[in-house]
C-alpha cells in the first residue's frame, strides 16, 4: 500500500512513515482525517517493531520481582542452616528426642521434642475449638443474617483481627486465666478419669488457656475467608438445590459447603499457620514447662516460638544457634502442613476445573 499513488499524495509532508520507529504509516486517503493523522489501523508500509519498549521493560520488572521471592527464601534458608549447624554439632544429646533446653551450658543439652509437641498440640486444639465456631459464624454472615446485621458484625470481626497479639496475651494472662482456671478445676473434678483432664493441679497457665486464646486469635482469619467463599456460591446452584425440595440447611450442605470446601481448607490452613507461629500470646499464657504431656489443664505447655521469645535474651552463641535450629523445625512443620493442604485441594481438581 505504501506505493499506492493516492496514498503518497495524501501522506503528511515529510512523514512517509516507513522508517521512523514512532512514525505512523501514511494513510491511503480513505478518510478525511488522514490528511493530518493517518488512521490507527495504518495504511502505509508497516513500521518496524520497537526494540526497547514499555513491554520489555515491564516484563523485566515483573520477572525480577518474581525472582526476588526465591532469592529471599534461599537467603533465609542459608542463614538459618549456617547458624544452626554449629549449635547442633555442639549438642551432646539427641536434638529430636531430648525434652529439655539447656543450650547455654558448657555441655549444651537441648532437644526439640517437648516444644515441638507443645506447638502442635496447642495449635491443633485451637483449631478444633475455632473451626466449628468460625464456620458457623461465616455461614450465619453469608446466608442467615439480614444485611443490616451482617455488615456491622463482619466489621467487628475485622476489628478482632486487628487486635495485636500482645494484647491477646495480656488479656489471656490477666483476665481470661481466671475463668479458664475455674473451668479446669470443674473439669478435673468430674472428668479426671479422662487423661486429658487428669492431674492434681495447679491449674491455670495451661495448654487449655493458651489454646483458647489462640482459638480466638485465629477465628477472624477463618471467618472472613470462609464467608468470602460461601458468598461466592453460584445462585444457580443454590436455587437448584432449593428447587429439588431442600430446606435451607440442606441447600447449604448440598451446594454451599461442597463448593466452598477448598476455600475453607485454605482458610483453616492459614489459621493453623498463624497458630503455629504465634509467639508472644503463648509466651504469656503457657506455663513454660518442658515435657510431653497430653494433660490440657495442668500448668504447663510450651511452644517453639514462645521458647524463642522467652530464652533469646539470655542465650549465648550456641543458645542462639539452638533457637534458630528450633525455628527451622517450626518452618518444616508449617511447610508440611501447607503441602498437606495443597494435596487435599489438588485431589478434587478435576471437579474444580470442570466447574470453572
Amino acid at each position, binding site marked *: 500500500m505504501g506505493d499506492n499513488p493516492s496514498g503518497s499524495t495524501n501522506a503528511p509532508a515529510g512523514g512517509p512513515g516507513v522508517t521512523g520507529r514512532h512514525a505512523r504509516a501514511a494513510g491511503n486517503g480513505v478518510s478525511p482525517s488522514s490528511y493530518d493523522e493517518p488512521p490507527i489501523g495504518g495504511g502505509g508500509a508497516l513500521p518496524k517493531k520497537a526494540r526497547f519498549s514499555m513491554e520489555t521493560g515491564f516484563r523485566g520488572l515483573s520477572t525480577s520481582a518474581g525472582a526476588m521471592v526465591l532469592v529471599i527464601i534461599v537467603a533465609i534458608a542459608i542463614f538459618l542452616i549456617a547458624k544452626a549447624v554449629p549449635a547442633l554439632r555442639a549438642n551432646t544429646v539427641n536434638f529430636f528426642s531430648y525434652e529439655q533446653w539447656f543450650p547455654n551450658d558448657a555441655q549444651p543439652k537441648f532437644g526439640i521434642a517437648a516444644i515441638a509437641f507443645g506447638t502442635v498440640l496447642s495449635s491443633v486444639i485451637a483449631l478444633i475449638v475455632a473451626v466449628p465456631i468460625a464456620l458457623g459464624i461465616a455461614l450465619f454472615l453469608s446466608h442467615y443474617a439480614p444485611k443490616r446485621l451482617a455488615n456491622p458484625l463482619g466489621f467487628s470481626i475485622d476489628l478482632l483481627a486487628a487486635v495485636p497479639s500482645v494484647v491477646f496475651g495480656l488479656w489471656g494472662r490477666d483476665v481470661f486465666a481466671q475463668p479458664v482456671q475455674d473451668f479446669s478445676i470443674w473439669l478435673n473434678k468430674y472428668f479426671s478419669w479422662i487423661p486429658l483432664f487428669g492431674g492434681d493441679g495447679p491449674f491455670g497457665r495451661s495448654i487449655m488457656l493458651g489454646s483458647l486464646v489462640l482459638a480466638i486469635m485465629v477465628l477472624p482469619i477463618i471467618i472472613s475467608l470462609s464467608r468470602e467463599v460461601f458468598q461466592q456460591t453460584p445462585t444457580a446452584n443454590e436455587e*437448584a438445590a432449593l*428447587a*429439588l*425440595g431442600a430446606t435451607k440447611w440442606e441447600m447449604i450442605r448440598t451446594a454451599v459447603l461442597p463448593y466452598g470446601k477448598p476455600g475453607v481448607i485454605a482458610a483453616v490452613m492459614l489459621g493453623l499457620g498463624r497458630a503455629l507461629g504465634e509467639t508472644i500470646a503463648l509466651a504469656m499464657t503457657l506455663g513454660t514447662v518442658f515435657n510431653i504431656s497430653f494433660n490440657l489443664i495442668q500448668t504447663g505447655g510450651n511452644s517453639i516460638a514462645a521458647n524463642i521469645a522467652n530464652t533469646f535474651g539470655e542465650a549465648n552463641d550456641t543458645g542462639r544457634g539452638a533457637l534458630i535450629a528450633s525455628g527451622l523445625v517450626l518452618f518444616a512443620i508449617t511447610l508440611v502442613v501447607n503441602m498437606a493442604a495443597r494435596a487435599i485441594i489438588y485431589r*478434587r481438581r478435576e471437579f*474444580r476445573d470442570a*466447574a470453572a
Partner: protein
Amino acid sequence: MAKRIEASNVTSYYGSFKAIDSISMTVEPKSITALIGPSGCGKSTFLRSINRMHEVLPGARIEGRLTIDDQNIYDADVDVTAVRRMIGMVFQRPNPFPTMSIYENVVAGLKLNGVKKKSHLDDAAEASLRSANLWEEVKDRLGRPGAGLSGGQQQRLCIARTIAVEPQVVLMDEPCSALDPISTLAIEDLMFKLKDRFTIIIVTHNMQQAARVSDKTGFFSIDKTGDPGRLIEYDDTQKIFSNPTQKKTEDYITGRFG
C-alpha cells in the same frame, strides 16, 4: 402422576414493584403449556410463583391463590419443600452441582429426601438418565464431573435430576436459550416424551418452539416498562398462532411488537 394447576388472581411483587398482575389460568395434567411474551413481562416470575421459588428472593411476595389439585400451595401450613418436590424446575442456564459427579447430580434430590439404599439410587439414576435421553452418552462415565458435559448434555442432566424425584409438574424456564439448535431439538423431543408422565410448563422466547411443542400457549405482555405483566391471551396453541383474538397477540407473533 400429573396434576392440574389452577392460578387465580396471582399477583407477585419484588419489594414494592408489582411484577405480574392478577394472572389466572388453568393448566391441564399431562400437557405442555408454553408461556411467551417480550422480556420483562413476568413470564419467569409467574413460573417461579408456581413452585414458590419466587419467594426465595429478598423482598419478594405474592398474593392470590395457586392450587395444585385443589390444594392451595400458599396456605400458611403448607411445607414449602414439599411443594418444590411436587413441582420440579429446570433453569435457563444448565446448573449441575459443580462438585458432584454425573451420578451424584442425578440422585442429589433423592438423597436430600432421605433415600439411602444404593440399589434404589442406582435404579433411579439409570431410569432418570434414560428418560432424559442421556443414559447412552454417559453410562460409562457416571463418576465424572457433571459440569464437564457439553451444555446440551448438562441441561438434560438437570432434567434428569429434576425428574428423579418424580414430581407431578415440571417447570422449565427458557431451558434451551443457552443451547445450540441440535441440543434444543433433543430437549424438545424429550419434552414430548415426558408429557406422558408430567405436566410441563415452559417459558420460551422462541415462538417456533412454543408452536412446535405446546398444547396451550399463554401470551404475557406489559403496557410499558415499569408496569406489571399481564396475561393477554391464553388458548390452544394452534388458535394462538393461527387466529388470536387479541390484537396484541397477533402483533407479537407476527413480529410487529417486542
